[in-house]
């Protein structure tokens, strides 16, 4: 059971990070550059999962994704499957839950690139989308790394919302954080210890790696 939970968690974290990089990058760009009066509310919305209890998120997702909910009903009609207690439902929940961990580092990296290099690229004939991919993205490499690592690790550590939306279906939604919780319920402390220590070590190693890469404060980029 433990190994399958680890496997599910890794899958969930990977898929979530990929989805978040795809939708988070344009969002981060907009947040870094927009002067719209919507920027502040959207920024706050993105940051909301940082401060919101995961049970609040879990509750709303349960309502939205449940078979009677607006999204869940549509999903059932379209696919014949329910979103709650499914891997897909977990991905949707995790994407929301880990959103700030991916969007904020990319946003800050884009902001740090600033208008200077983008204007320089335009003066060299680069169209905006060209400059985005050829200048802004590579110069933000470190932000992307931080984003991917934080998003991955945070998804791996997700508990409350996943518990409410996914329950604990083995091989489907029983992620490692829940497995730890259940091992404890089953009085299997050895297994709980093993998983907890593994996660602790993994998270720590990843953080040390990210901070070491980011320690050099001067703008030497990843090459």
């Amino acid at each position, binding site marked *: 059971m433990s190994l399958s939970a680890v496997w599910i968690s890794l899958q969930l974290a990977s898929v979530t990070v990929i989805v978040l990089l795809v939708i988070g990058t344009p969002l981060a760009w907009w947040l870094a550059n927009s002067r719209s009066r919507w920027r502040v509310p959207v920024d706050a919305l993105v940051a909301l999962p940082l401060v919101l209890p995961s049970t609040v998120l879990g509750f709303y997702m*349960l309502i939205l994704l*449940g*078979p009677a909910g607006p999204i*869940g009903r549509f999903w059932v009609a379209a696919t014949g499957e*329910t*979103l*709650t*207690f*499914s891997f897909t439902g977990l991905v949707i929940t995790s994407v929301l839950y880990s959103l700030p961990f991916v969007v904020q580092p990319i946003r800050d990296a884009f902001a740090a690139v600033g208008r200077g290099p983008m204007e320089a690229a335009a003066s060299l004939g680069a169209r905006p989308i060209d400059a985005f991919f050829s200048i802004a993205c590579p110069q933000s490499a470190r932000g992307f790394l931080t984003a991917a690592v934080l998003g991955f690790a945070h998804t791996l550590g997700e508990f409350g919302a996943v518990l409410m939306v996914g*329950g*604990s*279906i*083995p*091989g489907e939604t*029983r992620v490692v954080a829940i497995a730890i919780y*259940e091992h*404890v*319920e*089953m*009085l*299997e*402390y050895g297994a709980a210890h093993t998983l907890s220590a593994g996660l602790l070590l993994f998270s720590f190693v990843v953080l040390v790696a990210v901070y070491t890469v980011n320690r050099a404060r001067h703008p030497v980029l990843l090459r």
Partner: protein
Amino acid sequence: DPVRVAVAANFLSPVEVIASAFEAAGGEPVEIVSGATGQHYAQIINGAPFDVFLAADQARPARLLEQGLAIEGSVFTYALGRLVLWAGDGHQLPDNGFAGLVDHPVTRLAIANPRLAPYGRAARDALQATGQWQALQPRLVEGLSVGRALHYLATGNVSHALVAASYTHARGRPGGAWVAVDPSWHESIRQDAVRLVNGPNPAGARAFMTFLKSAEAQTILQGFGYRAAGEVTEP
């Protein structure tokens, strides 16, 4: 697909043994998800894809039937459970049994959440029936399920717990001593099983339910301190 069984926390250990026997007898693999009866119920309402629900009461399976989420005619009482008072390592049981709890050095008493777990409800009823509920209130700790109540005892965080008798037979049970709670102080714990509409493996579910009724399974659960209920279907 395996047979997915949502089981009330108290019955986790027996069902693991039963599932092994079922598989050994040529049944499909069984996946077990443990939790409080009320938690399972809420999840099933919200679309959780379980084949079989082994509840710790009769009310929730009945409600699922009403809501069309359980299969008509599949309900049966698979076990009658009992409550024990457990004193953790280094703590004593009250000399005059359960009723003496209130005068006993109890640092904390763990029970399951009465609104989610039938064993929690039985514990509350018994404490009320013996007039100890109010006095013990400040020392009460609630676990979401009866398993979590025991977990607080196992980690030494409470001195006493009111839990299912089956735990006295479980592998890895915590140390200490226990004493049965007189069943007359609470409603009897009649545990119903039901097959569910949203289960992905109806055939497997049917086979598992049949096996649960078998003498072999009933013998196993009696070995965990349950009283067999035979093939008593709900009137």
